């Protein structure tokens, strides 16, 4: 049930998705590391949700202690390797770098972190636990994404047994299935998780925890349950024609090419939405061979939820944007077997802020694939099954400091709590929650 998953990358995938930020060479890493000023109480560390001691790990690179550097990173962030690749460093550590006010060139913290982590993973990647004794007390995690992985690793470090349940065949959640391949290869995500498995974290794949009965069982077998379930499925495009085979939601589209071996795409692709996932999908479509990728978004450029740098990349790669545009129907070919285009309408913002269609502004464009990327909906059904776990705005309500939900047996972290942020935020939630769960376990079992 929990055999080690395949970690080799698909060669065609590697060829089509060259890395956006190739690793530093040894020489450039040393040069860059030496540039770091070694700030005290460094702003980069403060900006990192997991508070990685950035100057410390950078100085260790400069001083030829790569293993020490990697362990410094892992001490704060067990997913240091994937975060080095996927973190939006411009708004986190590198955005906070004092070099912006010195010579305008922030330290390449993300790439340096990757340098240390790659060396560590290439050299066997073993984390020695301080104690091998297993303390009394067991915890279950639902969902094998970043929040649960960080939570579980932290508990193992402190000697407690953890089992992670996930309905999918591979661990990692969005790290494995949902992050654009040119940022993080599924194979790299799996390699990192092998390291966590090596710490003694147990995995149960293919097991969907959804019913009353399973919850009863977990509650009986485990002292506490951590909800790291992320957000639910992507919202559906509810317009005529949306049920056709050529309409594929962005997360499914990404998961299919990353782990499903589906390396085909339409010639003309429409992506609906302008968030980070929408941009990931659009850029993936180009790499998979789409000749034209257009994005439609119902508001203007300034309102997109994608990071500015993501948007700039997409533009530079040739993605076209249609602002103030809403799709109204997916059009089928005459024989009804495939998509032939999409009909859109111009919208405008009314005085009360609501959007309304502009009469007579409908237009059509040819396409053979539509990728809706209009946000994920919360896993409400499941959550309501967790008795007494209160929700707020569709997210699990927790005590920020402890991660505890309104049901004392349940804790939660990651996207299901924060509404969908970054991997590093999920790691921070998981780690913080683990520390508090340990206190509860100590109280319970002594």
């Amino acid at each position: 049930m929990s055999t080690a998953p395949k970690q080799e990358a698909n060669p065609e995938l590697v060829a089509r998705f060259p890395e956006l930020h190739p690793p530093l060479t040894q020489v450039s890493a040393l040069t860059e590391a030496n540039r770091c000023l070694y700030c005290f109480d460094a702003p980069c560390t403060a900006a990192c949700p997991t508070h990685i001691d950035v100057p410390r790990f950078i100085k260790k690179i400069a001083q030829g202690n790569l293993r020490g550097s990697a362990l410094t990173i892992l001490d704060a962030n067990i997913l240091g390797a994937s975060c080095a690749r996927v973190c939006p460093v411009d708004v986190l550590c590198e955005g906070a770098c004092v070099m912006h006010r010195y010579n305008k060139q922030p330290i390449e913290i993300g790439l340096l972190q990757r340098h240390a982590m790659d060396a560590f993973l290439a050299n066997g990647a073993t984390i020695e636990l301080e104690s091998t004794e297993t303390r009394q007390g067991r915890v279950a995690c639902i969902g094998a994404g970043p929040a649960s992985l960080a939570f579980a690793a932290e508990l193992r470090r402190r000697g407690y047994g953890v089992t992670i349940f996930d309905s999918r065949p591979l661990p990692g959640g969005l790290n494995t299935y949902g992050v654009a391949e040119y940022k993080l290869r599924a194979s790299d995500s799996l390699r990192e998780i092998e390291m966590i498995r090596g710490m003694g974290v147990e995995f149960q794949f293919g097991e969907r925890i959804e019913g009353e009965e399973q919850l009863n069982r977990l509650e009986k077998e485990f002292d506490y349950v951590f909800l790291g379930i992320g957000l639910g499925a992507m919202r559906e495009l509810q317009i005529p024609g949306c049920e056709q085979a050529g309409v594929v939601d962005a997360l499914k589209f990404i998961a299919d090419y990353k782990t499903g071996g589906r390396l085909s795409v339409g010639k003309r692709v429409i992506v609906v939405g302008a968030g980070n996932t929408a941009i990931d999908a659009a850029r993936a479509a180009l790499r998979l061979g789409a000749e034209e990728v257009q994005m439609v978004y119902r508001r203007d450029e300034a309102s997109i939820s994608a990071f500015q740098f993501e948007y700039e990349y997409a533009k530079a790669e040739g993605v076209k944007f249609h602002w103030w545009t809403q799709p109204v129907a997916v059009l089928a070919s005459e024989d009804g077997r495939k998509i032939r285009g999409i009909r859109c309408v111009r919208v405008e913002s009314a005085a009360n802020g609501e959007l309304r269609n502009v009469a007579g502004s409908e237009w059509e464009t040819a396409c053979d694939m539509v990728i809706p990327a209009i946000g994920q909906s919360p896993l409400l059904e499941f959550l309501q099954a967790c008795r007494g776990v209160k929700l707020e705005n569709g997210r699990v309500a927790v005590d920020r400091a402890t991660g505890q939900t309104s049901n004392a047996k349940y804790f939660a972290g990651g996207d299901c709590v924060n509404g969908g942020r970054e991997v590093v935020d999920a790691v921070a939630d998981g780690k913080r929650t683990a520390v508090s769960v340990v206190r509860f376990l100590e109280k319970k079992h002594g």
Partner: protein
Amino acid sequence: MVEKKTSPDISVLFAGKIHSPNPFWLASAPPTNCGEQVMRAFDAGWGGAVWKTLGEPITNVSSRYSSIDWNGQRMMGLNNIELITDRPLAVNLREISEVKKRYPRNTLIASLMVESKREAWHTIVQQAEDAGADGLELNFGCPHGMSERGMGSAVGQVPEYTEMITAWVKEKARTPVLVKLTPNISDIRVVARAAKRGGADGLSAINTINSITGIDLDTFVPRPNVDGRSSHGGYCGPAVKPIALNLVQQVQGDADANLPLSGIGGISDWRDAVEFLLLGCSNVQVCTAVMHYGYRIVDDMCDGLANWMREKGFGKISDFQGKSLERVQEWKHLNLNYKIVARIHEETCIGCELCYAACWDGAHQCIHLDRVGEGHSGNGRHATPAERENVSRQRIAMTPIPKLDHPLLRNGDAEPYATPLSRIPRVDEDECVGCNLCSLVCPVDGCITMERVDKNVAAESWEQRVANSANPARKCD
């Protein structure tokens, strides 16, 4: 009337006899090993060269240099175990003669080292001068290899030998004689005085410093590795400049020792050279910088020097030679009432907090981060660096995502400077001892300045204070 514009004159006259078009000579070392090299050096603009030490040809080992790198920069310091020339004396003499013929305006000094016999010294002096050398430099400084054979620093470490051999040389020499001093001695002035007593016309200082630069952590063999073994070498390069400046000042500040001095030790650019000249040197010699970058570096040495002189209004080198010498005094003459404090210029502070860490751990705990709240721990004392870091680590940080963030979280209070006020340190001027450390660690030029605050207090040195306190009449003041 048109004022005639002239470039500053950077030529020098050493010991009243040796003319050189500029003060930059190549030191006796690998860059002056043969005539072909020296001629290329003169073509590049070097004013003079001290030929690689002449003597009985030796056999060198292979693997001869090792160095100290620092923070990614190569060769902060260079160490060598190479000996004097390994070429036949006749070849060197013939080439000296030829170079001098082709480059009559450049200075050519012959560095000499032979066994400590009067005849041997007389012979080599005669040979070098016959070849056309403008002067002689007695190598009493080489600290490795040759010293084991009773030459080099084995002579320079014993004042009596130094005086005796200098005197032998002076019996024969018609050109100026410079004695090159070793720094590997407790008081360099003692040997300098001996050289002066022996009749030397000038000195050159410093030769290299005994060193082991480092050890290979895989093989456990110190560098340079000669078939699994190493030997101490001579250290030079930028790292030794402060030591060289101090020794130069000691010699120049001593009436019984001072002579025209050719300054040596880590000189890499025109600024280094000016510093040696300000401490009274008549010219300078360079080696490591050339071994690192080639002869071409002399261009900016001449150019930078001339531009600086023009800016300062100096027409010739003697206008500023020795100008800083009187500024170096014994500690007891320093003004105890001079008081400066650090000022942090908020508008250029980048918020690295290196000054804060340095002041707390390496100085006097008078820089604080208390411009915004939370600067104090509960009991009114200042938070320690560890406490401060702890607060930061406990804070919950999130990736900023406009769509998800509450509007109140997005905009902090307006900040007066580019760096958040909470990260700009503050100096407690009452506690500040004016040590300079913060201004030294600050990466931004001019961000931390040291400013004088002792208004209307008469100067008083330690010597004066002791004298005054011994005087009962003054005590009652």
